[in-house]
Each structure stands twice: as structure tokens, then as C-alpha cells.
């Protein structure tokens, strides 16, 4: 188990390094010159060179990348002479736009995206699994058909459409909910939840529909297994049979998808964040794109990749908990 974990963690580091390298190459090779942008319009050649040297842009690409990677682990001093700036341990550089540390920016925005992702995930798991299991247990009845038709339709709804519908119905028409504004969980949990409920719903509809479809299939398959018959024959209550024997075995494929979805959601919620004006990581990324702020772009990409990789690892470890047949 420990050996397995160590090997996997090494793999995670390798993947992250590879992603950093690819991102780095793409964004630093392609034609856009942050030095020229920093220098302004009336810029002499010498001054441009000086800025470029100060930003470390005159070094060869591999050198820049090596500096970047060492900076993450040890921190580094950026620039020279009077412009020197020390960047502490998880150093991802400084934003070209406002000279704030990229790490600080990320830490600042992360709670918003994490709240959005976590709430939506709870909602869609609850809705999706309930609908899927209900449909599976009542296979080929009217309930089953209605639930599945609803799920196909909901899975096809564009998120823009769902969001606008929710905004219109729950805010404009009835005034049931406030227009979403981020309130930190620590300062007022109730207001946090009521503000985020709308974006949660908007995200959850799509995923819940997909999970309902998936879990119905998985559940039908696992309920047909011989051990279910055994469990029933030994006189276990129906509830125990369904939850402990059926659902537990059917969960493994769902868990895989859940890990991928949740990991991807941190950055994948760019559209939801922009539709509801939430100041999360997605917004930060989008803002950085429009201004060509490469350190921030690189930082968000790495963070997002990190989440995907870690979520996948967590899921693989969870297999052993959910499915007793899995051993590492």
C-alpha cells in the first residue's frame, strides 16, 4: 500500500512537470512580448533589453523553465539590482498586470471556486444517484421512463440556458434568492449557501442528469448479480440489499467519473463563474487571458492540472474502501 502510494505520488509529480513544460513552451514561445507591454509606447531599445533581462526573458527557454520549477520548491529572487524581488516558497512568479504574487492570487480566489465545486458536487450526487437508483429499482415502469426522459433532456440543456432560466425564475420573477455574490463560508454560512445555491443548481442539473443515466445502468447491472439473490435469500431487509450490496458494487464506475468531473470542475467552471459573476479561479484565468498575463495563466493551468491528478489519485485509493475486492 505504501509502496503503491509512493509510486503514484511520483507519477503525479511527473505528470505535473510534463504539463508545466508543455504550458510553458506554448505560452512563452508564441509571439507576445510582455517586456514590450511593460515598457509602453515610447520605448528605447536599451530600455526594452533591460526590462527583458530583469524579467528573465533573455535567458534560453530551458533555463527559464528550470528557474520556474526550482522557484516552486525553494522560492527564488526575480530580477536584478534595484528591481530585485524575492518570491517565497511556492513561487509561481508575479502577475505582469498588478505585480501580485500568482500564488497569493490563486489562494485568494480558490475558496470561491472550491465552494462552487463542492456544493454543486454534493447536489448533483444526491440528485443524480437518487434518480438513477430509483429508476433502476423501478425498471421499465412509468417512473423509470419519466426519470430517464427527464435526464436525457436535462443533460442536453446548455448551461447558459439553465442559468438564465434559474436567474429569471428564482430571482427576477419570484425574488426567492439573491443575485449571487460571494460571501465567505466562515463569515456567514447561511448567506454563503443561499448566495451560491443558484450557481450550484445551474451546474448540478447537467451533471445530475449524466449521473442519473450512469447510475441507473450500473445499478441494473449490479442488481442482477447472483450475490444480490443470495443476500435477498438470506432474508436481509430490502434497504440493506439495495444500499450495501447493490449500490456499493455499482459505485466503482461512478466514482471514476466523479473523480474526473470534480477535478476538472475547478477550472471547468469558467462559464458558470462568468455567467454569475463569481470571482473564482475561472474568472482570474479569463481576466489573465485578455491581458496576456502569462504567469497567472501558467499558475491556473498548473493548479487545475494538480486538482485533476490529485482527484484521480484519491479515487483510486477510494476504490479499496468502496470495493472490498480491490487491493493494492
Amino acid at each position, binding site marked *: 500500500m505504501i509502496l503503491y502510494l509512493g509510486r503514484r505520488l511520483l507519477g503525479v509529480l511527473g505528470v505535473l512537470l*510534463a504539463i508545466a513544460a508543455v504550458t510553458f513552451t506554448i505560452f512563452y514561445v508564441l509571439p507576445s512580448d510582455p517586456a514590450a507591454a511593460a515598457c509602453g509606447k515610447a520605448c528605447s531599445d536599451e530600455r526594452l533589453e533591460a526590462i527583458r533581462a530583469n524579467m528573465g526573458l533573455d535567458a534560453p527557454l530551458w533555463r527559464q523553465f528550470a528557474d520556474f520549477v526550482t522557484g516552486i520548491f525553494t522560492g527564488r529572487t526575480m530580477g536584478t539590482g534595484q528591481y530585485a524581488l524575492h518570491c517565497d516558497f511556492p513561487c509561481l512568479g508575479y502577475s505582469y498586470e498588478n505585480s501580485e504574487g500568482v500564488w497569493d492570487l490563486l489562494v485568494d480566489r480558490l475558496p470561491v471556486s472550491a465552494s462552487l465545486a463542492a456544493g454543486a458536487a454534493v447536489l448533483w450526487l444526491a440528485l443524480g444517484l437518487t434518480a438513477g437508483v430509483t429508476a433502476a429499482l423501478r425498471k421499465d415502469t412509468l417512473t423509470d421512463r419519466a426519470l430517464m426522459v427527464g435526464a436525457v433532456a436535462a443533460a442536453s440543456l446548455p448551461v447558459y440556458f439553465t442559468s438564465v432560466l434559474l436567474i429569471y425564475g428564482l430571482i427576477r420573477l419570484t425574488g426567492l434568492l439573491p443575485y449571487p455574490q460571494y460571501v465567505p463560508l466562515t463569515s456567514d454560512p447561511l448567506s454563503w449557501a443561499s448566495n451560491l445555491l443558484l450557481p450550484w443548481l445551474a451546474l448540478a442539473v447537467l451533471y445530475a442528469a449524466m449521473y442519473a443515466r450512469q447510475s441507473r445502468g450500473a445499478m441494473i447491472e449490479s442488481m442482477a448479480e447472483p450475490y444480490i439473490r443470495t443476500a435477498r435469500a438470506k432474508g436481509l431487509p430490502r434497504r440493506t440489499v439495495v444500499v450495501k450490496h447493490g449500490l456499493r458494487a455499482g459505485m466503482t464506475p461512478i466514482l471514476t467519473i466523479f473523480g474526473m468531473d470534480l477535478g476538472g470542475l475547478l477550472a471547468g467552471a469558467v462559464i458558470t463563474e462568468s455567467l454569475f459573476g463569481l470571482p473564482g479561479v475561472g474568472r482570474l484565468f479569463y481576466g489573465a487571458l485578455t491581458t496576456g498575463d502569462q504567469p497567472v495563466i501558467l499558475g491556473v493551468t498548473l493548479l487545475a492540472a494538480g486538482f485533476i491528478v490529485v482527484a484521480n489519485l484519491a479515487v483510486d485509493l477510494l476504490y479499496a474502501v468502496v470495493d472490498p475486492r480491490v487491493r493494492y
Partner: protein
Amino acid sequence: MTTTTTPPPPVHAGGGAWRAVRAEIRRRTSLKVSLAVVALFVLMTAAAPLIASLGGWGPEEFDKSAVDPYLGGLPIGPLGGVSAEHWLGVEPITGRDLFARVVHGAQVSLLIAFAATAIVVLAGVTAGIAAGYFGGRTDTALSRLMDLTMSFPSLIFMIAMMSVARDADRTLLMILVIGLFGWPGVARVVRGQTLSLKHREYVDAARVGGSGPWRILARDILPGVAGPVIAYTTLMVPGMIATEAALSYLGVGVRPPTPSWGQMIAESVAYYDTDPMYFLVPSVCLFLTVLAFTLLGDALRDVLDPRGSRT
């Protein structure tokens, strides 16, 4: 997985599978409808200028007489300016014809989605068959590459690549960028299927009979892989359409004035309560296309890949 009321008919090799597909189409009304919707939108993709010209307006043609300058440029008339002249109404402010725009938008959106799907299937099938059939180092290297590609935060990466390459051909770039991240899914399905086929008796027989690896791949493995791939591909198209819409929505896709559905939605979101029709037209098109492809893919999977080779 959706609305199977009876277990799908057993699949026979060769022409039998297609007969089963046809039987399934006859049996399910929803399938007929989705086939019709898909056909309609494919027709739009193929002949957009022709269809749009039926309405008599070009997609980039302004019609100031259809909007009311005293109402902030809102369309004149009911339902966002629906009239004999403008079948689906007009855009606020510019007065561009929505029918012409949505038809041309279908061409852009679906062309990108189809081309990206083609790339994904080609790359995925090649990589999957190679990994599954040759095994060993080829398999290790390709599987690692798949894992790596799947770890990329794809949407973020696509957005970034689209916005960095400012001068490239938008449509072509979008096809390549979307295609780049989709192939591992197909490759995994194909790899698994190839692994299970590779040691079947008929493949061994072909090998003993003196067929070379290329002949075996083309004649024996590829047909066996085709069913699941077709089902998976159909289910993949909606995702591709949605991705194109997302990129265009965020303003990194095709450039205005060329219309695409995502871009039309982005422009019309602000008008959702003053001119709902403007927002509804592209949204409903997107919804219908995605729905039709999902239903079609479900049915194809029930018939062609009953056990579900997806993990």
C-alpha cells in the same frame, strides 16, 4: 441505457448489426425524430448559404428598418420581430436576420464539431489498436500518453491556446485544439476491445493462415472494433458541439461577424428578458442538436455495444 423497454436484440456479425439498427429505428419514435433533427442540421451544415437564402437575407446584412431606435434598438413587432420577412425575428440594434444567422451558425458550429470528431476518431482508433495489438512498449508509451493527455485541464488549455494564437485561422485552430484532447477516450475503448479480440480463434486462424499484422488489423480487428466506436462517437458529438459553443461563448472562438451558436448565445444573454426570442433561437438549436445526438448515440450503443465497453 436510457429508455430500453425490452432487452436489445442480439447482435450478429456483419450486416446483421445494421439490420438491428434499422429495426431499432422502426421501434422507437424518439429515434425517428432525432434522426430527422440530425438530418436537418446536417443539411444546414452542408448547404447553409442555400437554405439561408430562402429567407432572403444574408447573415451579415443589417436591416435598420426592423429595429426601433427609440427603444434601444429592440426589434419592432411581436416575438423579437418575427414577420414574413424575418422568419425568426432579428437581432436587436443591428437588425440582422436571425434565421440567416442561425443557419450559418449551424454550419460553423457543426462543421467544427464534426471535423474535431473525425480527428479524434482517427487518432483514437489508430492509437488504441496499436496499443492493444502490439502491446509491450508501444502499449506502455501510448497508455502513458493517454493518461497525460487526460490530466490536462482541457477547457482551460483550449481557451488559452485559442487566445494565444491570435492570427491563425480560427475554424481550423478550433478543430485541432478540440481534437487534441478528445482522442484518449476513444483510444481506451478501442484498446480494450482490441485486447479482447486479439486472441479470439478467428484471429489466430488468420495468423496461422499466413496473414501479416496489417492484414489482420484491417480485416479482422477493425471490423470488430467498429461497433463500439460508432456508438461512442455519436455520443461524443454533443460534447464537441458544447465545447465549440463554450469557446465561442467566451469570445475565443470564431470571430464576429461570422456567426456560431455559442457566440450568438453570448451576445444574446444580456437580452434574455427584453428580447427572449433572440436568446431562445440559438439556445434551442443547441439543445435540440445535443439531444438528438444523445438519443441516437444511446440507441446505437444499445444495439452495437450491448455490454458497454466503456469503463
